[in-house]
């Protein structure tokens, strides 16, 4: 048994590294003097890099299976989810260090960041409802605090409170849903669920609905999307970049794994997710239309992007490309999202549309990155968003949901309008105001993410190749 335990821990080295990192950062933050608080960022970044190396190592083993008595999947999907989470976390750390430099006690911020990343990573790998619930809660509670981290800012506190209040109910609902499904299937691991659930009973419907709702909250999908624009606007800008991206990685993968174990097309989950996708993309888009605040705009566009991402979940089991399209979407979305928020951070949090007029002349590089991330969200090739949208449209058609693809196209056309409302003044206006920069680090983080938006699109093959053999329930 001792040997077994060691072997099992050996399966989850990347996750263990994150736990250790979070604890070390916390101890450092508690003991280090104020002027050394930034050191916490260095420790956190180091831990994230080590964890990423361990993840790459694990993925190269090509050994896809369940571990810890079937409660955690170590497969390509988990590994990609973890890698994406870590990539975003690393960039966010680079943006956070200059952002928080005037905050005398920001060391423990990085603890929260690392534990929140861990929560999302564990959600991606969960193959057991209890495991999923625990990681979902870990991701949520840390997220609430991150959103409210600017203690003296009203909008930050408001964002945190709203996020918390909206989250309390679905998080509690998750526990009830878990109880129902446990009762029906006689177990909580996914192999047990797959074997134990059958038919469509009212209890199954309730259980599934509650789990889906909890995940919808994490994703910022309708009907639990209202926190997204507030957090995007009010949370510290680096934290906003993190919260609008990272829980989405864990949540979307978790949702795909969950629906995959339901009895084939029972409880009408496929049309349910399709309707959620349709509502989410449309509502997010319409709300973004007249936004004059860039961060709110990014929040609403994050909602609409979630709607596109849900198309991949609709196609689970019906298209071989469902999982690759899901992973590609996540990669494209998160890299574009951190690039856009990175520009906001590098420009010291400027967010008013009027302040972006003429930016292309004063800060051509940052303006270019914002433009690239917008164009990638629209799905213009050869940027990351294009293969993502191509695959999403394709899998939805293959799954028999052509109408969803057509709706996504209509929404994409609508989205040009609000992205162009920022692009046009940036490029076509000649206003020459000042554009102070936060720090070289913040700009570098934005530039690196912008380069990522191009790289993921142009060099899509390595992703496509490693996404292709990914499974939702290894051995299942």
């Amino acid at each position, binding site marked *: 048994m001792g040997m077994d335990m060691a072997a099992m821990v050996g399966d989850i080295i990347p996750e263990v590294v994150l736990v250790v990192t979070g604890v070390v950062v916390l101890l450092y933050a508690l003991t280090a003097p104020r002027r050394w608080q930034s050191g916490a960022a260095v420790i956190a970044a180091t831990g994230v890099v080590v964890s990423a190396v361990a993840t790459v190592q694990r993925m190269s083993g090509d050994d896809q299976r369940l571990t810890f008595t079937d409660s955690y999947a170590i497969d390509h999907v988990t590994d990609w989810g973890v890698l994406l989470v870590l990539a975003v976390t690393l960039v966010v750390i680079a943006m956070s260090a200059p952002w928080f430099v005037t905050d005398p006690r920001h060391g423990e911020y990085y603890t929260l960041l690392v534990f929140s990343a861990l929560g999302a990573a564990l959600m991606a790998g969960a193959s057991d409802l209890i495991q999923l619930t625990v990681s979902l809660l870990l991701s949520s509670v840390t997220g609430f605090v991150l959103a409210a981290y600017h203690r003296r800012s009203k909008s930050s506190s408001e964002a945190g409170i709203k996020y918390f209040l909206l989250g309390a109910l679905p998080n509690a609902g998750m526990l009830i849903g878990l109880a129902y499904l446990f009762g029906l299937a006689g177990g909580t691991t996914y192999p047990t669920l797959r074997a134990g659930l059958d038919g469509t009973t009212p209890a199954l419907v309730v259980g599934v609905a509650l789990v889906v709702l909890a995940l919808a909250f994490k994703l910022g999908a309708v009907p639990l999307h209202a926190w997204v624009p507030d957090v995007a606007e009010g949370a510290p800008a680096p934290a906003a970049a993190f919260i609008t991206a990272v829980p989405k990685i864990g949540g979307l993968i978790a949702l795909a794994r969950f629906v995959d174990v339901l009895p084939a097309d029972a409880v009408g989950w496929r049309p349910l997710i399709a309707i959620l996708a349709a509502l989410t993309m449309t509502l997010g888009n319409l709300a973004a239309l007249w936004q004059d605040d860039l961060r709110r705009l990014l929040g609403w566009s994050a909602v609409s992007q979630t709607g596109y991402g849900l198309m991949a979940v609709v196609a689970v089991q019906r298209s071989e490309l469902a999982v690759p399209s899901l992973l590609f979407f996540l990669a494209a979305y998160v890299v574009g999202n951190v690039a856009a928020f990175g520009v906001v951070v590098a420009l010291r949090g400027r967010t008013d549309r009027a302040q972006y007029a003429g930016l292309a002349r004063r800060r051509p590089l940052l303006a270019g990155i914002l433009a690239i991330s917008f*164009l990638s969200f*629209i799905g*213009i*090739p*050869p940027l990351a968003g*294009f*293969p993502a*949208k*191509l*695959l999403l*449209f*394709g899998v939805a*058609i*293959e799954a028999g949901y*052509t109408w969803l*693809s*057509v709706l996504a*196209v209509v929404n*994409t*056309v609508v989205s*040009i*309008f609000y992205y*162009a409302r920022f692009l*046009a003044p940036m*490029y*076509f206006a000649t206003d020459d105001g000042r554009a102070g920069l936060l720090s070289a680090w913040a700009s570098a983080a934005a530039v690196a993410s912008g380069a990522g938006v191009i790289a993921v699109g142009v060099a*899509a*093959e390595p992703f*496509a*190749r490693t996404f*292709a053999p990914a499974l939702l329930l290894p051995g299942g």
Partner: protein
Amino acid sequence: MLTAAIFVPLAASVVLAVVRVDSHDVATVRRLRVAGTAVAAVPLVLLILAWSRFEGTGGFELVEQVSWIPTLGVGYTVGVDGISLPLAAMTALVFTVAIAYPVDLRDRARAYVALFLFLEAASLGVFLALDLFLFFVFWDVSLVGMYFLIGVWGHGDARRSALKFFIYTLAGSLALLLGIIGLYLATEPRTFDMATIIEQQPLAGGGLYATLVFVGLALGFAVKTPLVPVHTWLPPAHVDAPGPASAVLAGVLLKMGTYGFVRIPMAMQPETFARFAFPLGVLAVVAILYGALVALAQTDIKRLVAYTSINHMGYVILGLAAAGTAVGGQRSAQAVALTGATVEMVAHGLITGALFLISGSILTRGHTYELDAYGGLASRAPVLTVFTAIAAFASLGLPGLAGFVAEFQVFTGTLAIYPWLAGVGLLGIVITAALFLRMLQQVFLGPLPDRWSGWPDLGRVETVGLGVLLLLVVIIGVAPAWLLDVIDSAAGPIVGR
């Protein structure tokens, strides 16, 4: 070689995007422009070279292939056939002239040249790509480039026109994307490779699925062409864009739509195309008449030229409809119609490119497009007058000029297949003749208003640029065999399927 034609201007535009130059300094701006023109001419030289090596076997030639995203069946594949080679060569020529052409750069010369070279690369890419994924990449990218070109250097309500252009054409290209995805999903094994899809004919069975795919593709191409009723983005975009950008937009970008019709639906799902050929022909005739009549009513030079573009693209679509018909036993008429439509694409690129450049020159000197404001310019500007006359006569289809060769073949081919459509369509030629003659008379004849007494004739760069375009118009008009042979080599096999 073809790859270099795409990547030389692309690389130059990337370099220009990062170097620092003083866009206020006159000498620097001139050097930038000369360098830009030289780079833009490189693809032209390469394509002439390609032309000399072209054998006309009927298939794709000079193919260059690199695997790109093999997991998804995407390859970087470029090559030419008899349809795409003339279009690509015309593209390179129009771009070279357009970049050299003088226009107000608003202190942003570097960005202007960079964007133009970028757009040249993208446009060439569309015509040379032999992979649907790659085709779509260039297609969409060209649209973004044009959006910025109109928005930054346009006049009038440029921002609004740019946005309308962007939203409208992107909507079209997303419809096209759905169509491409539909084709892709039908292939086995999955591939975006054009030659493979043409060989496989995955949708030969027809049915609802094939129809939906066709509708997506046709909608995308119809918006770009543009075909009435999805043409409304065109007039504002053309009018508010700077002259050289209008020349490129009308001369090159519109051809992407008609070329797309030939390359994708006509070649990849000919049965479905044939079922829709007649309605397409009807729409084409509507576009011919509508474009001509609305142009006749214009008092603005540039708007007039813009509407004649709708009219001329109608001839192209009419030719394509006849070429793709299901009416049996008309192989040779179909081939004639397709050749005519392709010559029309090339001719319209040269002629309308020239007309838009001319209207740019008129705007630079007179600061207005209103026809009423002008008169009697022939006495002050003989070169401008002669050039405009040649372009206008070519556009209205005077024998001996390129437009005639094209329209003659389009109507000859169509007459055998859809005689009624051809008959009604011919009316369009009469109307365009009237409107061009009226324009020439208004601007160049009659008394010269006092305020134009100091009107300068065309400058050296303008004369050379327009001269080259119009010389080619005359050559194609007088001795078109070198062009027709190349186009015929592909037209036969395409309609023969």
